[in-house]
């Protein structure tokens, strides 16, 4: 059974059609990269999967494996999807003034533990866990006591997404341009975060504009999204070709 199966998904925002029939199957253990020109609908797809209320699904289905059964997750609240192991790394992480990273993460971690029947951690053990994760990702632990993303640099916000991912230990990670705006070292940190999580149970969908990330995280599939549709799928060599030739030739092929 596939972990995620998207069937002919059509979605709108503010009455504009953005997704025009997406089909995508992701199995456990796989890494998928989604590339495509600006405005083609990549973030929209990630947000629809995770349940953002601004996006309306007109037709189609998203099935996700819960307790060994394919489940229609479009009916679930975003928090329920997260508790079932779906994680969205935001293209533009949101600033939450007045809530510290540690409070926020502890709340999130414990709500997921509770749902999965695991024991919640107290403040002491949780800080221990965060400390380890920060160290593992070579991140400054002082981040933890600052309000979520407030005043963080663009790259720090992205690293914070990876920290959250590594603490929440998701089954399906949707990383929306987590590599944009990162310096080389940070890029390696992000790649490490993803590679550390990789197992035969987990899957990752990476939205990216740069083949560079794919030097560190090797995708099993590369998809090209254009005008709300996947118009080409290939292996990691497709990313290299896109890097050299741009999107026009793929779009041209499609038109013919």
């Amino acid at each position, binding site marked *: 059974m596939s972990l995620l199966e998207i069937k002919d998904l059509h979605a709108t925002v503010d009455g504009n059609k953005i997704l025009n029939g997406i089909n995508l199957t992701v199995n456990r253990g796989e890494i998928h990269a989604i590339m495509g020109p600006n405005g083609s609908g990549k973030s929209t797809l990630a947000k629809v999967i995770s349940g953002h209320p*601004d996006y309306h699904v007109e037709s189609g289905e998203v099935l996700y494996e819960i307790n060994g059964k394919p489940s229609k997750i479009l009916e679930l*609240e975003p*928090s329920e999807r*997260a*508790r079932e192991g779906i994680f969205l790394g935001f293209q533009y992480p949101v600033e939450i003034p007045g*809530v510290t990273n540690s409070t*926020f993460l502890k709340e999130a971690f414990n709500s997921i533990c509770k749902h999965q029947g695991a024991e919640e951690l107290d403040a002491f053990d949780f800080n221990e866990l965060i400390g380890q994760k920060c160290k593992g990702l070579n991140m400054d632990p002082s981040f933890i006591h600052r309000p979520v993303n407030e005043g963080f640099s663009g790259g720090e916000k992205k690293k914070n997404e990876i920290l*959250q991912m590594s603490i929440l230990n998701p089954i399906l990670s949707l990383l929306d341009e987590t590599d944009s705006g990162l310096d080389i070292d940070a890029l390696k940190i992000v790649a490490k975060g993803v590679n550390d999580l990789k197992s035969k149970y987990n899957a990752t969908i990476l939205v990216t504009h740069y083949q560079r990330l794919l030097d560190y995280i090797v995708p099993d599939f590369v998809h090209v999204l254009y005008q709300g549709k996947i118009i080409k799928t290939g292996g990691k060599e497709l990313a290299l070709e896109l890097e050299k030739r741009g999107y026009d030739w793929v779009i041209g092929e499609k038109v013919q």
Partner: protein
Amino acid sequence: MNGEMKIFLEKASGFNQINNDQDGGWSADFRDRALNNIKSSGIPSSKTEKYRHMDMSAFLASSVSSKDQQQNAVVSTADYHFNFVGGYFREDLTKKENLPSGLEYSLLGGSEVQDILAQFVDSTDFFQQMSNSFMDGGLLIKVKKNHTLDSPITIGNHDPKTNEALSLPRILVVMEEGASAELIEHYRGFKGVSWTQSLTEIYIEKRACLYHTSKNTGCPTGTQLNSTKVKVLGAGEYHNLSLFLGGKKSRNNLDVELLGEHAHCELVGLFSNDDSGICQNFTHIHHRVGDTTSVQYYKGLLDQKSLGVFNGTIFVHPKAQKIDSNQLNKNLLLSNLAHVETKPTLEIHADDVKCSHGATIGRLQEDEIFYLQSRGITKKRAVQILSEAFAIDAIYKFKGTQDREATVLYVKEFLETLPALKG
């Protein structure tokens, strides 16, 4: 004379008969002057901007109790050094053994305070005139020259649990030169159609510094007014945190006069309400001389059909140059029916002045809620976390307090009762 005035005067004379008929001295004159003032200026109409949303009928309908009746009321005074019962200062309940050293107190009334009280008289301030016309003792606190108190002074006003609904506690605080202290007042609205009106006058001498928290817990049927009038001399500092949580009607009147160079004040406030409750804040900062600074930061969090008002005025008097003053009021509406009226006013009569003010009214951002949801936090909990963060932020702006943890808890407990945040 109209009917309202007649009732008002009868109430005042009734009050003074049962409490004060034996004392003929200066305090009788003090009350008479205030009463004459009210007679000539009248009871303010709720049609005027300054007194909008005020409804004097609750006061006129309330009943006067005598001090004697309150002397025997049994209350739990565990939390406070100084205790008022039904508005009367109960000296016998004072926790003398726990008072920080460097502090002196007495019943307010001795003739040595009459000069200071006279300095505070403002014939245009109806609520002060009202408190003055009902003056009966109260509490005088003095922090001695160059003393720094090591723990906060706490004051509570207790419900007498009789049916007497009128309560007019009154405090005068004198911070002598170079003294430094923290003061925490807690007023509660009483059950029934009650009227609680406190007056706290604070005199801050040179280089003295006071941190002052005023907690006001409203009740669903009562009116609660709190007037604080402060004078700050050269290089003195006044820091205020005003919390007005719940209640049918509450009103915060906060006037600060910066009277000497390098005097500074910081006024932080949080008001929150639900149902059809009304919380009004009227702040006035007078920069009377140059080289004085002030900061205001007020937050409103409103649920259901409640109304919040922030009306903040900064006066820069002629010749008061080199003034730095900023004011910010931020409001968060938790329901479509809640509303806020915010009106910052600058009256500037000098030219070398840096004043800024701003106000925002908004709702929780969908994107913030979604961010939390995407991490497994339910929508309800996300709304709780974000609203709480909005409110608690104000408390963190009140720096230098020793009581922060308790204050945060006090606010959180209230927020949990708001319908939008419950459960």
